[in-house]
Structure formats: structure tokens, C-alpha cells
């Protein structure tokens, strides 16, 4: 009843090609952005901003990056966190060695560094496929982790292994409060998400999906394999790199290799699966779900058992429930939260009528 496209006619190609063809979607999106950009900075408290929204948005960006590679181009990667680390350390390096470069440009450059590394590690994908490739991407993860831990040039020979990230300043305004950092993250993520949304419905996106569905067939109909696969790796790593830079600078405010270990890679892969492979919206839903879940579990366990639990048991229960949920999701809804949202939209079209 409320959510219907009836009566909305598209009379030009322009109207037909909009990202949100239905008025209700545009209104909802506008409202969401309004809340995110205006209401939350005005009324959100510090906990909400720095413990929930900032990590959630940054990991959404990384998830989006992996989703481009795995969900759209079909190349399974277990090295996401490595590319994030490249972004983080590159941003640190640019800030350290070329301090006159503006912050956003430094982030952009670090994204490009990650893209270059990603392309290099993407080269084997031309020859190795499927699960073999997944294991091969582990090489990038472990190699990059080792590189940043062992080679002093990247960390400016810091002895502790934890480097404080430089203070962020944009056009003379220091980004020192959670609200300002949140606004930076939100802006970057919004712009990149919009770009991703457009990218996946462009020629490049269609080429990725063709390769995902069957690469031999795609090659036969004339899709250049080299360019398509490498561009997927490059763009995916770019997103991961920017996310890594933001993670180090806007969330942790320190640069450390341990933050970008294999567990992080798995976390992001989980976000992609739970959110929905091949969906931009799903990347955000997945990241939100995985960030919120442990918090909800903790409070649920507090409520259920109080302090009666053996200390140290809680993280194990959490891990168990987490794993079970992944399995449950795969069994019940293999296409993830994004699919659930689609089903809801279908229901909303008809509601309150049965047909």
C-alpha cells in the first residue's frame, strides 16, 4: 500500500536508469542520510559514535571492497585485512614523510597503494581458480603482516609495534572529537558507496558478474579476462585500503599490524556472507549485524546469568553462538540479509492485502 511503484512512469532513459527508481526509496534514502549527517552528530552520544557507528561504517567499507571482489567478480579472497594494512601503513607513511599532502589526498593515495598491491596479488587469479585461489590469497595476508612487523621502514623503526597515528587535520580543522571523526568517516563511506553502487551497474560491473557466473563463458563472449579480474582486485583493494587507513586513523588512532590479522579477514568475509554476496546494501547490513551481535550477546548473557558464569567462559559462548549463526544463516538464507530485505520489500508492496 505504502510501498508501491504503481503510477510512477518512467518516460526517459534518464529516469529509467536512476539508482532508486521508486519515489519511496529516494525519500527513505534521503531521510536516512539526513539522520546520519544531521541528527546523529547533533544528538548521538560518544559511545554510539566511537564504539558503534565509526567501526561499523569503516568495516562496511572494507566489506564493500571484498564484496566487489567476491560477490561481484567471484574471486574468493582471504587476504582482505592485508590490503587494509597496506592502506593504513601507506596513510601513515604519507602523513609522516610528505606532511604537506592534505589528509584526504593521503587517504586516496594510500587506497591507490593498496590497489597496486592488490593487483600484484591478483595476478595469480588468471591461472588459479576457486578454492586454490582462496588459499593462495592467504599468502598475501601472511606476507603483508610479516612485512609491516619486520621491516622497520614502514613503521618508522618504532620499537613497540604500536604506532600512534598522526592527528587528523582537514583544511585547518582538527578532527579531534568523535563527532568530527564520525562525519569524516561517514562522508568518505557515502561517496565510495555511491561510487560502488554505480560501478556495479556499469559495464565493468556487468563484466565482473559475467566472470563470476562462469569465466570460461565470459571469455568466449569477448570479456577480457585480464582486465576484468585485475580491475576487480584493484578496486576491491582500493576500498579495503581506504577502510584500513580510516580504521587506523579515525577509529583506533594507532597503526598496528595485529589489527589486520587473519581474524579480521575472516570477520569481513563473514560480513559479506551474512550481509549477502553481490549486494551493496548487504555490505552495510552484514557489517552492522556482526558488530552488533557480540554486544547484544553480552548484554543477553548478563541478563540471563548475571555474574554466575565462570570467568572466561563468556567469549567462548560468544564464539560458539557466532559460529552457529553463520551456519544457520547459510542454511536458512544463503543470500544473506540483503535477500531478507528484498523479501520484506515484496511483502510491503502488497501489504495489507493478501495479493
Amino acid at each position, binding site marked *: 500500500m505504502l510501498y508501491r511503484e504503481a503510477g510512477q512512469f518512467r518516460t526517459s532513459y534518464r529516469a529509467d536508469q536512476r539508482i532508486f527508481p521508486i519515489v519511496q526509496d529516494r525519500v527513505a534514502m534521503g531521510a536516512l542520510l539526513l539522520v546520519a549527517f544531521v541528527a546523529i552528530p547533533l544528538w548521538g552520544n560518544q559511545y554510539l559514535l566511537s564504539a558503534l557507528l565509526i567501526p561499523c561504517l569503516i568495516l562496511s567499507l572494507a566489506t564493500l571492497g571484498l564484496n566487489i571482489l567476491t560477490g561481484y567478480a567471484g574471486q574468493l579472497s582471504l587476504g582482505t585485512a592485508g590490503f587494509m594494512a597496506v592502506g593504513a601503513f601507506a596513510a601513515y607513511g604519507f602523513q609522516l614523510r610528505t606532511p604537506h599532502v592534505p589528509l584526504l589526498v593521503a587517504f586516496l593515495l594510500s587506497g591507490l597503494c593498496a590497489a597496486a598491491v592488490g593487483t600484484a596479488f591478483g595476478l595469480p587469479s588468471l591461472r588459479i581458480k576457486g578454492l586454490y585461489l582462496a588459499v593462495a590469497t592467504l599468502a598475501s595476508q601472511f606476507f603483508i603482516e610479516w612485512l609491516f612487523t619486520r621491516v622497520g621502514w614502514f613503521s618508522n623503526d618504532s620499537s613497540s609495534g604500536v604506532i600512534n597515528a598522526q592527528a587528523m587535520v582537514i583544511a585547518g580543522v582538527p578532527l579531534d572529537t568523535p563527532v568530527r571523526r564520525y562525519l569524516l568517516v561517514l562522508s568518505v563511506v557515502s561517496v565510495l558507496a555511491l561510487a560502488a553502487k554505480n560501478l556495479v551497474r556499469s559495464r565493468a560491473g556487468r563484466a565482473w558478474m559475467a566472470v563470476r557466473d562462469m569465466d570460461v563463458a565470459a571469455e568466449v563472449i569477448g570479456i577480457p579476462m585480464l582486465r576484468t579480474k585485475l580491475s576487480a582486485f584493484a578496486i576491491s583493494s582500493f576500498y579495503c585500503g581506504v577502510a584500513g587507513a580510516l580504521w587506523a586513523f579515525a577509529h583506533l588512532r594507532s597503526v598496528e599490524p595485529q589489527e589486520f590479522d587473519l581474524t579480521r579477514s575472516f570477520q569481513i568475509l563473514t560480513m559479506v556472507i551474512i550481509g549477502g554476496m553481490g549486494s551493496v546494501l548487504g555490505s552495510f547490513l552484514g557489517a552492522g549485524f556482526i558488530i552488533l551481535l557480540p554486544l547484544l550477546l553480552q548484554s543477553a548473557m548478563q541478563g540471563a546469568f548475571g555474574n554466575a558464569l565462570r570467568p572466561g567462559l563468556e567469549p567462548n*559462548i560468544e*564464539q*560458539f553462538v557466532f*559460529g552457529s549463526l553463520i551456519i544457520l544463516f*547459510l542454511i536458512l538464507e544463503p543470500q544473506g540479509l540483503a535477500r531478507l530485505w528484498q523479501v520484506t520489500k515484496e511483502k510491503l508492496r502488497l501489504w495489507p492485502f493478501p495479493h
Partner: protein
Amino acid sequence: MQFFFEVLIGGLLAGVMYSLVALGFVLIFKASGVFNFAQGAMVLFAALTFVSLEERGLPRWGALVATLLVMVLLALVIERIVLRPLVNQPAISLLMATIGLTFCIEGLAQGVWGASVKGLDLGIPDNTFEVKGVLVSQFDLFAATVAGLLVGVLALFFQYTKVGRALRAVADDHQAALSVGIPLQYIWAVVWAAAGAVALVAGLLWGSRLGVQFALSVITLKALPVIILGGFTSIAGAIVGGLIIGATEKLAEVYLGPVLGGGIENWFPYVFALLFLLVRPEGLFGEKRIERV
């Protein structure tokens, strides 16, 4: 030269330990096409269960049998709850399911038995002795013998028993195997139980070497380059791959490590396997894929 051989033999024997974990991967992949990421967690689970049962006063053989039963039970539960609903799903879904399973098993193992590091003494002395001037560890030799026996038993099992033949049929073609009356679910349960038993052996050997702790689950990831090197579907590949990875890893650490800054053991096997795959994309003994549109 003598030093070189010492490193080489140490590496080969360590490689056998990787092979043991890789064997579990290969068994499951062969029979069900599932890339079982949870094999490492199963190793941890088996070792932790064994040690904890022994701590609670069970005799060694009792603990061994009890752990074996627990592993079989775990296999049955996994087959019923995780695999059966996911039949015919794409490989990546199954892979993700086993990643979820990893979290589950790790949480379960540490939740039930506690997360502290436990010592495990199998009563095998870890002395070194000399063979023609080259030092060899007795424990490593024992591990290698066990691995060799295990492979022999598995090879015989696959080759000469009815269940083994059914396993190979399922590995070849699920649909065809089903149509000649091979019960898929039963086969899967058998394979997972066998992988559980292999995990128990690997867990005992690794556990007595490093102590039974969470790190076991991470170290066993090294089995991944082993199986991509050897090929996902080949038991011989798991063994040969393990030996190659073990040897090159140790040699690289000793000869390249000082140049590159040390600690390269962590990534060298992966990069080595990756480079190897560029030459042979299906691994040493993997089946060649023929792709058709």
C-alpha cells in the same frame, strides 16, 4: 653440507606433522567436495578432549577410546546439522559453513575444557641421536612413523574395503554414486569420523610438541599450502606436499631468513605454494580440470 642435511631432515620430519593435518582436509574434500576449514579446530578439540579426560583420571587408553568416540559423535552431529541441509550449495557456502564450524568447535572446546595451556606427555622421549653425523630427533621420527602407518592404513582402507570403494565412488560423482544405491549421508559421516580420528592423531603429536593450546588451531593452517601444493584430492599429495613444505620452509628460514630479516617461516610456505601453482594450477597430484561452457 652436514648442516644442510640436518636442516633438511628436520624440515622433512616437521613436514610430516603438516601432512597429518593435511590428510584430514584431503579425506573430506575427496569424499564430499567440502573444503573443511575446521580441520584445525578439530585437531585442537581432539587434543583438548584427550588431555582433559586424562586429567580427570581416565587411564591413557580409556581417554584415547573416549576421545575417539567423541570425535565420531562430532562427525555425526556435523553431518546431520551442517552438511545435510547444505547439499548442492556452491563451494563457497560450504567453505563458509566450515569457517562457522571452526568458531563453533573452538568455542565449544575451550568453553567445556577451559582455555589454559595444557601439557601433554605421550611418554616418547625427545632425544636426538646421530646418523652418520646428522642429528635426528627421536620424537620427529616417531611422528613420521605414525604418519606413514596412518597413510598406509587409509590407502588399504580406500583400496580394499567396501566402504572405501563407496567413498571413492562418491568422490568421483555424487549423483552417479547415489543412483547405484550408495548412501551419501552414511559415507559422509564415515569420512568425517575418519577425519576426526586423523585429527586426534595430529592433535596428540602436535599437542605433545607445543602444548595443547589455542595456537594449535592456527598452526594447523600451514596444512593449507600443503594441500594446494599436493592437490586437493590426493592422499599421496598431502604427504609429498607436507614434506616439500616442511623442508623448504626450514631451508628458507635458515638460508634466506638472515637476509630478509627472520620469521619468514610464517609466509614462505604460502608464497612457495602460490608460485608452484602458477606452474601447475591443480597442484602436484590434483585432478586436471577440464572446463566446458
